[in-house]
């Protein structure tokens, strides 16, 4: 912890459906303890859960770094996945490049990124084909 910012780091394991979602659930618990407005907590947990699951299912796992300050929370999810070819397309509801196999598991409906966007104040995506994707999600505490 430095400059009044609390940093939490989580490992996101690939294709591990047992522990999938643990990082976002843990962050949610902490925000409640910090006394953050319940509606903000909800936005954080929904968007972080989506991003976390993306990393688990589509992107070979990765890590989550969460910075909690007094006015906002910034969640950075970095994965080791295939990267996103066209970010603008990926932001469209219903657009997905997921394989049939992934869809059969109930994922890949193309709602993840739009849902993160909807629940956050800013979303920044950097992606490199063959290397991975970095999502930076910011949610303000006052709104």
């Amino acid at each position: 912890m430095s400059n009044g910012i609390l940093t939490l780091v989580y490992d996101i394991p690939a294709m591990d459906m047992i522990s999938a979602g643990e990082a976002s659930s843990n962050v949610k618990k902490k925000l409640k303890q910090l006394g953050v407005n319940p509606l903000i907590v909800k936005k954080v947990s929904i968007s972080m859960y989506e991003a976390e699951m993306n990393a688990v299912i589509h992107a070979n796992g990765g890590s989550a770094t969460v910075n909690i300050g007094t006015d906002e929370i910034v969640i950075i999810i970095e994965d080791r996945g295939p990267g996103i070819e066209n970010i603008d397309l990926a932001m469209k509801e219903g657009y997905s490049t997921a394989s049939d196999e992934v869809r059969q598991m109930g994922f890949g409906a193309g709602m993840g990124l739009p849902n993160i966007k909807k629940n956050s104040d800013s979303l920044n995506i950097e992606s490199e084909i063959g290397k991975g994707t970095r999502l930076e999600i910011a949610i303000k505490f006052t709104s």
Partner: protein
Amino acid sequence: MTTYYHSVTLDDSKCKGCTNCIKKCPTEAIRVRKGKARITNERCIDCGECIRVCPYHAKKAITDKMEALGGYQYKIALPAPTLYGQFPSRYDRKAILGALKAQGFDEVFEVARGAEIVTEAVKKILMKRDCPKPLISSACPAVVRFIQVRFPALIDNLVKIDSPMEVSAMLARKRAAEQTGIRKDDIGVFFISPCAAKATSVKTSYERYSSNVNGVLSMADIYLGIVRDMESKKYDKVLIQAGIEGLRWAGSGGESLSLQAESYLSVDGIHNVAKILEDIENEKLGDIEFVEALSCTGGCLGGPLTVENGFVAAARLRKHLEQSRYMERAEKRMDYSEVDLVWQKKIEHKPVLKLDENLQEALRKMGELESINDKLPGLDCGACGAPSCRALAEDIVRGKSHETDCIFKLREKVRDLAIQMMELEGKMPPVMDDSSNGEEDLKK
């Protein structure tokens, strides 16, 4: 600040200060201090997990005694449908209700009748377009309080309609006053309860300015009297009125079946409930229309103030359900307004888990909590009196505990001290030191 009244309390003389209850509490409300369990009242949701798990029966629910009936001219018993599952199958519902009445009441009004009315009211909410999804049942007061403490974002999803107990009490009093001419204040309405949480609902209501119920009697307390009178046939049979829709509220899934919701989920056991509420909060259950969440395993049939094992009670209730399958709903007379059923008070978030009022200070405490937690052994042994290492770390940052309350930390400190002592013991003041290296050095 007024102190929050709630039902679950400790019998100091029976408590051995073990760790069974602190481990089971879903809100981490219990700590062991000076050899006795201490409940933080504001955190307690009266689920009764501690009552169930305590091997010494040191946890109890405060309920009213039979003497409370004395203050009223006309007394009405309000049995929860769970009561029917408490007795061997040879007793039918008429006998059970008759023997209940014989315990000193003038009238018996089945709470299952209120449950039928609530069922209809909830059906109407489900049909509304702006109904939150999923709608969460408020039938279990422990679950409602759990949401207030741990899942405040879900307050909007709760059914804000009076409980079957309140509706039944309202109608029973109103009709008794009309029929007998006795003043409403002279009519005593007593709920026969399977749980502690209901007793709290009557004394400290979250939904009404004051409860329609005058007292709550424990099912376990009244049980023997009923059995005795049934055995000796000392009762007049009472007309049964409630149908299956109301009766099956006693068990897990019963309310949902009566509602005939398109898609529903029923969950019981407070720790299972926590997982489902977590999922709802993460918007993972948007395809579910109605969630019935009950704190006790098996629903109210598994309540801490029941006598019969919940699974046995469920089997016994089945017979009563079967017999009432073709009975019509008791309440066809709408001599009440639907508005009367809506909660009077807005229920609020109880932020008792918050580390500090000030976010910056809370963040600092959270950082400290993390670093303390990292240094604790992680065994969650409970020997410090807190349910887990993390809970101890939390108590430390709240200024309620010390690091040395952990026996492993204490041992570590003692060992460090012993090593330091040994080192110091080896050191000799030069005037007493006969190995006197210094002098030899000088000779060279």
